[in-house]
Each structure stands twice: as structure tokens, then as C-alpha cells.
């Protein structure tokens, strides 16, 4: 198993497409949806919503948000910054790990599969605004739609170029991203006095 071959898994309930019947009134003949993608979408969306609720309403979430806004003020309020970092980084890695598992039937598994997503991840996070999860959700969906439509209209080789160009355009027009705090991109970040 631990070799450089491209691997995937195929399960019985994932193999048959879900057929959304013909809707002649909308002009759609027959719509086949891959159940693996449906599961990935639903689980990904619910994880995003869960992490948003965790960050917004729980006490630990408030601690994490306070630390991200102003590190030295959080130190003065008695927050243990080291513990916050030790907690936040694994939470992020957990979410990415689950996302990787959900992608197994869609993308193949090989030692370099993560590299294909690094640039998209950067683009999605900055496109949505650096500090906001809602922004990242919406930006992810937007960039997916842009990528698929541009691959249909222009060709699959150049689809990445389109969303990079959209990204640069957004950075020029509204540098904080769609949901970011306006003006945050030009302020100097207040660093802790260590």
C-alpha cells in the first residue's frame, strides 16, 4: 500500500449514481449525481458550520478569536497563548484530514495528492477574507463554480488560470477578500511583546 501508485476505493453504495429524474419543465432530461460527491458536500458543509458555531458561541472559540485579533491584549487578559496555539493548529489539521478522507473517491490517493490543493486553499481563504469562516465557505463554493464553468467554456488546461486571475482582480479591487475586515490588509499587525 505504501507505494507511489495511484489508488482509490470503490464501495457498492458509491458506485451507482443518484438519478434525479427528468424535469421537462426546466429543460433537464436526466441528472446523474455521484453519491460520493453528495456525501462529501454534505459532510464538508456540516463540518464548516460546526466549526463556525464552535468559534462563535463556545468559550474556547472566543478565546481563539481573541488571540487571533490581538495577541498581546490576550496575554494581558490571562489567556495562555501557547495552549491556544497548541489547540488551534491540531483543530485545523483535523478538518483538513477529514476533508482528505472525503476526497478519496473523487481524487486518487498518491503521495503528492496534497500538493494539488495547496494553492487552491490559499486562494479560497484569501478570497473569502482571512479571518472569516463564512467567507471561506462561500468563497470555496464560488471558486468551485468558477473553475467548473471555465473548464467547460475554455478548456480543462486553463481552468486554474481563470480563478487565479479572478483572485488577483479581487485582491486589487477589495484586498481584504469578500468577507474580510476592510482595511485589514494595510494595517500593521500588533505583535506580542515577547
Amino acid at each position, binding site marked *: 500500500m505504501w507505494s507511489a501508485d495511484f489508488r482509490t476505493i470503490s464501495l457498492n453504495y458509491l458506485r451507482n449514481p443518484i438519478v434525479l429524474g427528468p424535469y421537462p419543465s426546466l429543460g433537464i432530461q436526466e441528472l446523474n449525481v455521484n453519491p460520493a460527491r453528495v456525501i462529501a458536500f454534505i459532510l464538508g458543509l456540516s463540518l464548516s458550520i460546526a466549526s463556525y458555531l464552535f468559534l462563535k458561541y463556545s468559550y474556547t472559540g472566543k478565546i481563539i478569536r481573541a488571540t487571533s485579533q490581538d495577541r498581546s491584549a490576550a496575554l494581558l487578559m490571562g489567556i495562555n497563548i501557547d495552549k491556544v496555539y497548541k489547540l488551534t493548529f491540531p483543530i485545523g489539521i483535523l478538518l483538513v484530514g477529514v476533508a482528505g478522507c472525503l476526497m478519496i473517491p473523487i481524487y486518487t490517493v498518491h503521495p503528492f495528492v496534497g500538493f494539488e490543493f495547496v494553492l487552491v486553499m490559499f486562494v479560497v481563504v*484569501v478570497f473569502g477574507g482571512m479571518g472569516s469562516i463564512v467567507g471561506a465557505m462561500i468563497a470555496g463554493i464560488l471558486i468551485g463554480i468558477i473553475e467548473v464553468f471555465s473548464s467547460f467554456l475554455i478548456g480543462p*488546461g486553463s481552468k486554474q488560470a481563470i480563478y*487565479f486571475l479572478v*483572485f*488577483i482582480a479581487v*485582491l486589487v479591487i477589495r*484586498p481584504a477578500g469578500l468577507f474580510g475586515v476592510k482595511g485589514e*490588509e494595510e494595517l500593521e499587525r500588533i505583535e506580542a511583546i515577547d
Partner: protein
Amino acid sequence: MLLVLAAVALAVAPLFIKNDFYLDGFILVFVWAAFAGSWNIISGYCGMVSLGHNAFFGIGAYTSTLLLLRYGLTPWLGMLVGGGLAALVGLVLGIVCFRLRSHYFALATLAFGQVSFIVAINWRSLTGGAEGIALPIEPGLYNMASSSKLAYLYIGLALFLCVMLIFHVIERSRLGYYLTAFK
């Protein structure tokens, strides 16, 4: 003084290397050192980390090669044209991106580098796609081609020394003080 001695040592040493493999490594070392030096001017002195420098490297390379293959312009001049074109593109990118903070600037230049990479792969008529441009040129001084690797090494060394000289001049001039004050 020490720099002059180091330059002379670097110039004389490769004459004693007989193995072509090490010569190849040295050529690459000089070329990448010049590239890294050019990256250092914006990222080391100014603190604006630019992750898209590969675009400028490619623009310079493709410009001088295409000028040689299609119009017969010697690469000694073509490299200046390529450098000028890359500087122009860098100017446009800078006008657009320089007001962003360091993280956003890094990502914007990264996106620009990726866009140039994808354009270079997909624009087959201009750049030859992913397999590149073959160079059917004969060796000679006009073509900047040579049948032995030693000439390339001295070209690489000259490039590296030029970049170091530019560094030396900038660091002591007023521009250097302006750049260092950025950080």
C-alpha cells in the same frame, strides 16, 4: 578586496574541473545564485516576499530564445530585451500589488506566478507547451552557444558577478538606504 580575490578564485578554479557533471552543477549554481540575488533585492531588503519570481525568469528566457529563433537577434542583446520586458511586467504587477500587506502580497505574486506557468504550458504556438522549444543552433559567439561546457560556466560566472556588483552598488547608494528602510 576580499570580493575581488573571491571573484578571481571563482574564475580560475573551474579550469581544473575535468568532469562535466561538476561543471554542469557549477553552471546551475551560478544561474540560480543570480536568480536568488534578484529575489533578494525585493524580499531581503524590502521585506515584501514575492513568491511569483518564476514568472520573470520565464519571461526573460522565453523572450531571448524566441527572438533568437524567429528574428535572429543575438542573445547578448536578446537577454537585455528579455530583462527589460520582465522588468516592465514587474512594474505593472508592482503598481497593482505593492499596497498590499506582506501576506496578501505574497499570495498575489504566487497567483501571478501560477497564472504565468499555466499560460506558458497552454500557449503552444508561442512557447511550445510543456515540451518547450528546441534549439537547433550551431555553436558560435553570435548564438551564445558552445560545444563545451566551460564557456557556459564563464557566462554564468559573469552573470553572477554582475548581480553581485549591482548589489554592491545599490547597497551603498541612496536607493539602498530607501530599500532597507522598508523593513
